[in-house]
């Protein structure tokens, strides 16, 4: 009688595993690791497959299967998680203890299977609990908490707590440090020059062209003129404003560079 085919390859029946059939060890490891959550899970599977009650495990049968499984892995030179090997040792120990005759005086000694059965039962309960948890309605998967945007009138942002001292400290830390590393110092600018630069830019935004003289405030005196002139030079240098003179010795006109 022919053996039943185990597979069909290109239409031809294959009755025996080819000798050189190669199962990549990685594939089996993945199988073991993805299918079973550890030795307890594998043991549970072996017990359930035989429809046995955990409390009445036939240790020798289950042990044989378990060890066969582990042996297969080892012949395939698969590195097993250490826990699988520990369990194999435990099973072997239980089996050997059951084979030994119990001394009369110690009849009451606990059945070595009991501890294993307790662990299996406990693990099975949590395996069950994990399934129950997974079936419960979960936010984001089954139920969706609702948050509706309110239609709020504009509310000015609250001002963060910030002191002038903190601001100055930050500027000192950053700017002094940055300038220490700078290759050259561009210009000797004081804050008053910078303030005047912004003033000029502002005025140019309101009025595209200004006469040079209108930039000076006579009340500020010579110092004011110097600051204004420095500001203007700096703005020219940065390409932010243009200064035009239509005729030699004519009036200077200042306009923003973008126009």
């Amino acid at each position, binding site marked *: 009688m022919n053996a039943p085919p185990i597979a069909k390859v290109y239409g031809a029946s294959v009755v025996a595993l080819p000798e050189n059939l190669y199962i990549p060890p990685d594939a089996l490891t993945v199988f073991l690791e993805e299918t079973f*959550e*550890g*030795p*307890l*899970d594998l043991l549970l599977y072996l017990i359930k497959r035989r429809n046995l009650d955990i409390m009445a495990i036939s240790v020798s049968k289950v042990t044989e299967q378990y060890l066969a499984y582990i042996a297969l892995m080892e012949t395939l030179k698969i590195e097993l*998680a250490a*826990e699988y090997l520990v*369990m194999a040792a435990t099973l072997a120990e239980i089996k050997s203890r059951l084979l030994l005759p119990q001394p009369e005086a110690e009849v009451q000694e606990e059945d070595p299977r009991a501890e294993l059965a307790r*662990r299996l*039962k*406990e*693990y099975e*309960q*949590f*395996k*069950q*609990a*994990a*399934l*129950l*948890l*997974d079936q*419960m*309605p*979960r*936010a*984001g*998967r*089954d*139920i*969706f*908490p*609702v*948050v*509706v*945007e*309110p239609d709020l009138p504009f509310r000015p942002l609250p001002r963060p707590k910030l002191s002038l001292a903190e601001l100055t400290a930050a500027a000192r830390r950053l700017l002094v440090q940055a300038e220490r590393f700078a290759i050259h110092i561009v210009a000797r600018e004081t804050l008053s020059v910078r303030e005047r630069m912004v003033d000029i830019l502002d005025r140019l935004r309101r009025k595209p062209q200004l006469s040079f003289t209108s930039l000076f405030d006579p009340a500020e005196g010579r110092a004011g003129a110097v600051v204004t002139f420095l500001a203007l030079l700096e703005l020219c240098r940065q390409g932010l404003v243009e200064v035009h003179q239509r005729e030699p010795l004519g009036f200077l006109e200042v306009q923003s560079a973008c126009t």
Partner: protein
Amino acid sequence: MHLKLLVEALLFASPEPLASRQLLALLKDEGVKRAELEAVLAELQADYQDRALELVHVASGWRFQVRREFSTWVNRLFPEKIGRPSRALLETLAIIAYRQPITRGEIEAIRGVSINSSIVNTLKELGWIRIVGHKEVPGRPELLATTERFLNDFNLNSLRQLPPIAADEEQSAGQ
């Protein structure tokens, strides 16, 4: 302003569930009494009876949520959502939920395998577990417990609503 609509507005606008206590504090100026609030919450629940939403009470309070029967359609909104949690993650979570506070070593003893740290980290990142202390044994391992967020996300009011598992029943019976 109608109290029911005020409560409705607050519940919809709040990014987190609102406890009755919080609602009463938010409506302090209106002098709302607890009994009035409760009546209004019951009314709201009834109002949404036949709608896609339901008003439920979870661990941190009241929230509106889209009912479970619409999840097929709602999930189409989030096509790139990450996959299902692994069995290892769910088993670890289950053990923490039913046996908290518990150390990682104790979880490993129950599962019979070591736990990858990434599982504990993922559970922390999900906001489902937290460290509630350290066990006074060598190494002072962390004691893990579930969070209020875990209860909210699993639509629960309290840990007592977790489905009973056999071991717990036995223990209760034995006590």
